[in-house]
């Protein structure tokens, strides 16, 4: 059992030297055998540990005092090479720090390492990374999920108690489910995206991985809030999100838990068994199970791969070999600098999504694809609004299967896209979602239960998640 972030912070606030936990995390990160870590930030981390020690000695009490944290390789961290898992950003040393990371550091957290990820967060298995696949600490022949697979694996392997990922279509919740960690995608706009290397800007949201719900709640509490540098960030009162119920009854009694019956179709048997068990235990704990429908959810993947790739084709146009990153050595003209640098720097999946995104945005196809997808998106939002008139939270699986084998789905992009079937609608609707570990399948592989709540109700989501966590024990 890994020490929680809260435990470390309490010790450091009581006078323990933050260098101890930081040095231990750095040593574990260097000894990482799962390809979860891209690079460690030794000097920066040790200097930050000393700064935290001084602040505590001066009387400050910090919510994340001395807590070692790993962050996904798509979050800017001043002075550290940040590459979004891509060759095209090789050599890019971030000149500034992302707001979410800055807020963690201000609360006493120490960034010890950056983590492996699918290239530009485009993948569901962490196999599109320029650094090679991450291995799932639960079973190294299997993938950890993606795209934040390195952050999930770093927490699952006990390297750090807390890690940051980003979630555009499930990239926090699906790997959390597959590695047996807690993964939270907050309400869209809760956490500033400033300094996050953008993929699909209307979908992207930064969130934490942790070993329990309370640590994720604490991280969200620290990171959330309006940031003038991200115009979509929201000034929203999240309430007392750190104040979680400590008994199943306090969390769940009378809570209306919606579920979509259609979700049970096509589930791996081990996942279905855990879902049924979760429902039984919820009922026993006094929750009220309510069948609901999300009639347009089955169109979410199709809408997502239009919207996300359209946004990505625009966002990724900035990587052109001029101002930073990889530049081709064989160009005779400026156009060739752009075209060859991008072809050499971007991997297969990124090129595929740029071409698809360019297609759906091009003249003659915009209305048929991009506009249509945004109309379907509104139908999905309306579905959620209807469902949440009947229930307080939604329960379902985070992933249709447990962790699959390395290489199992790489030859068929569409098959890979379908592994995000339960997580994508969340991003289209902007609602918060979380995956909480709930037992294992017949092979001992972790199963995650997903909860979703209405926009801005992250506190309700976390309280229910704390209840599920208590029921899983």
């Amino acid at each position, binding site marked *: 059992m890994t020490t929680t972030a809260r435990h470390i912070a309490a010790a450091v606030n009581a006078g323990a030297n933050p260098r101890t936990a930081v040095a231990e995390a750095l040593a574990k990160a260097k000894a990482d055998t799962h390809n979860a870590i891209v690079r460690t930030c030794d000097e920066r981390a040790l200097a930050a540990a000393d700064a935290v020690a001084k602040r505590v000695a001066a009387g400050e009490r910090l919510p994340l005092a001395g807590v070692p944290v790993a962050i996904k390789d798509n979050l800017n961290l001043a002075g550290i090479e940040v590459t979004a898992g891509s060759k095209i950003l090789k050599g*890019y*040393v971030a*000149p500034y720090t992302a707001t979410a990371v800055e807020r963690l550091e201000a609360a006493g957290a120490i960034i010890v390492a950056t983590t492996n990820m699918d290239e530009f967060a485009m993948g569901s298995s962490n196999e599109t990374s320029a650094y090679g696949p991450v291995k799932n600490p639960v079973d190294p022949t299997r993938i950890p999920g993606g795209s934040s697979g390195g952050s999930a694996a770093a927490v699952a392997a006990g390297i750090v108690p807390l890690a940051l990922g980003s979630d555009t279509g499930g990239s926090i919740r699906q790997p959390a489910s597959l590695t047996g960690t807690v993964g939270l995608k907050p309400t*869209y*706009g809760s956490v500033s995206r400033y300094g996050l290397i953008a993929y699909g800007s*209307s979908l992207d949201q930064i969130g934490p991985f942790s070993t329990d719900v309370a640590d994720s709640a604490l991280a969200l509490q620290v990171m959330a809030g309006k940031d*003038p540098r991200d*115009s*979509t960030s929201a000034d929203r009162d999240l309430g007392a999100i750190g104040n979680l119920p400590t008994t199943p009854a306090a969390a769940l009694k009378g809570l209306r838990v919606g579920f979509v019956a259609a979700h049970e179709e096509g589930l791996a048997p081990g996942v279905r068994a855990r879902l049924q068990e979760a429902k039984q235990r919820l009922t026993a704990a006094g929750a009220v199970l309510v069948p609901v429908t999300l009639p*347009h959810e089955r*169109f979410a*993947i*199709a*809408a997502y*791969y*239009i919207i996300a790739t359209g946004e990505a*084709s625009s966002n990724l*146009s900035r990587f*052109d070999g*001029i*101002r*930073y*990153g*990889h*530049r081709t050595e064989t160009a*005779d*003209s*400026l*156009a*060739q*600098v*752009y*075209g*060859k640098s*991008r*072809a050499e720097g*971007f991997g297969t999946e990124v*090129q*595929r999504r*740029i*071409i*698809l995104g*360019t*297609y759906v945005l*091009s003249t003659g196809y915009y209305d048929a*694809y991009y*506009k*249509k*997808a*945004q*109309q*379907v*998106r*509104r*139908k999905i*939002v309306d579905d959620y609004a209807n469902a949440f008139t009947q229930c307080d939270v939604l329960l379902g699986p985070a992933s249709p299967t447990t962790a699959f084998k390395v290489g199992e789905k790489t030859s068929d*992009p*569409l098959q890979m*896209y379908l592994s995000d079937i339960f997580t994508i609608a969340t991003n289209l609707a902007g609602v918060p979602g979380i995956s909480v570990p709930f037992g294992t399948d017949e092979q001992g592989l972790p199963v995650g239960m997903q909860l979703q709540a209405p*926009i801005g109700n992250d506190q309700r989501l976390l309280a229910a998640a704390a209840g599920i966590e208590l029921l899983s024990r």
Partner: protein
Amino acid sequence: MITDDNVRHLAKLASLHLDDATVTRLRGDLESIVGYVEQLSQVDTTGVEPLFNVSGAVNVTRADVPGPLIPTPQVLALAPARNEVAILVPKVVER
């Protein structure tokens, strides 16, 4: 029906210098993915306003106040080709 030439045109729009084998592979991928997303035509969206961003924000502005900037030498240092004062690119204007 998507042709190799369609993909070449998209690659040009996206500034991706692709070889013929990649063009053909991407054509196959694009056909299969576009075939999948065609299912959206089953949804009746008559009169439905497209939803581009759930935040509902439109044209957010802020006060035009200068803030701290990243120092020029630090910005220049990131460029793959540069001299002391500028980022270098191949010549774009003929004499």
